[in-house]
């Protein structure tokens, strides 16, 4: 895979983790977060850029050179911010690939309809737990 220009919005646990992985895979990465302290989550090997600011302000996205981005991942703690940033990136700045984390399954549904790629940790964790429950039950059943 050739090197991509990736913007990661939100430098919390997920954002920092993704930024570190993408940077290690030799992609060009820009991380945006409202708080400078959040950048402490980036590894020492992280070779990308940091932009301090609110990604809901178009000026901040421009600072991250969004018009050049191949991919944007919106991973802040707030669903609405992630959805707005993803929509703005795609519709206003023509970023070819956008992805958003969305916690609330009800909202994920709406944004799937809009054609945004979303990842819903609540649904994923729910499925994983259910699988474990089935496993435990079938083992329990086998023992009887």
């Amino acid at each position, binding site marked *: 895979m050739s090197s991509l220009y990736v913007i990661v919005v939100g430098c919390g646990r997920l954002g920092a983790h993704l930024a570190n992985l993408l940077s290690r895979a030799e992609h060009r990465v820009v991380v945006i977060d409202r708080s400078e302290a959040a950048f402490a989550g980036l590894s020492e090997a992280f070779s990308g850029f940091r932009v301090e600011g609110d990604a*809901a*302000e*178009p*000026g901040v996205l421009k600072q991250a050179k969004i018009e050049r981005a191949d991919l944007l991942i919106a991973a802040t703690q*707030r*669903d*609405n*911010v992630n*959805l*707005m*940033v993803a*929509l*703005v990136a795609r*519709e*206003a700045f023509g970023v070819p690939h956008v992805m958003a984390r969305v916690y*609330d399954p*009800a*909202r994920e549904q*709406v944004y799937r*309809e809009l054609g945004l790629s979303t990842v819903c940790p609540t649904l994923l964790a729910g499925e994983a737990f259910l699988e474990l429950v089935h496993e435990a039950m079938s083992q329990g059943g086998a023992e009887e």
Partner: protein
Amino acid sequence: MKVILVGSGRTLYFLGQTFVAQGHSITIIDRDSDDCLKLARNLKATIVQGDASEPSILEEAGARGADIVLAATESDPDNLIICHMAQSRFGVPRAVALVNDPDNQNIFRKLGVDAISTSLTVASLIEQRAAFDQVMNVIPASEGRVMISEVALDERSPVVGLRLADVQLPEDALIAVLNRGSETLIPRGHTVLESGDRVLVVMLTRSREATLFKLTGQSS
């Protein structure tokens, strides 16, 4: 009209008050419970406490039958999602977001959400008012393509003493209303303009300079 207002604090309270005074039926959605108590005590409106970007809260507020949703929270992302949800889920005919960052005004419009920037609107009002001291109450309409201004005519004005039919305004400008003393009338071709008259002019924004020059004899 059935109006749903979303936001918090004093702005929302005064917005609500204005709409109620105009005889609209108002539902307010506010996250803050203290705010909600105050609103419920002081406004003739239905109050719903909660996050309006949750579909269930919008539904509880009666979004399905609403004519307008106005999203005026302090968060632009919330305002966008609320308007989007109101339009796409509940078929609200008009959803308007009050944007905090002026840059978001155009961006929201690109995303299909009607947006108003308070700071841009106030700034343009002040700018236009400062340019002509005889020009008051400049109101932008039709996405800013149309301007409605009140112009005070004084003895320096080249149109004073003329019949309206003889005033040669630019094509896309119209004198719609005339205020003379305590009287307000719709002027006709035979109406003669007098010093001290205040006229309401409706014009395309691009003809504003030319129109105001014609009426006041002054350029900005």
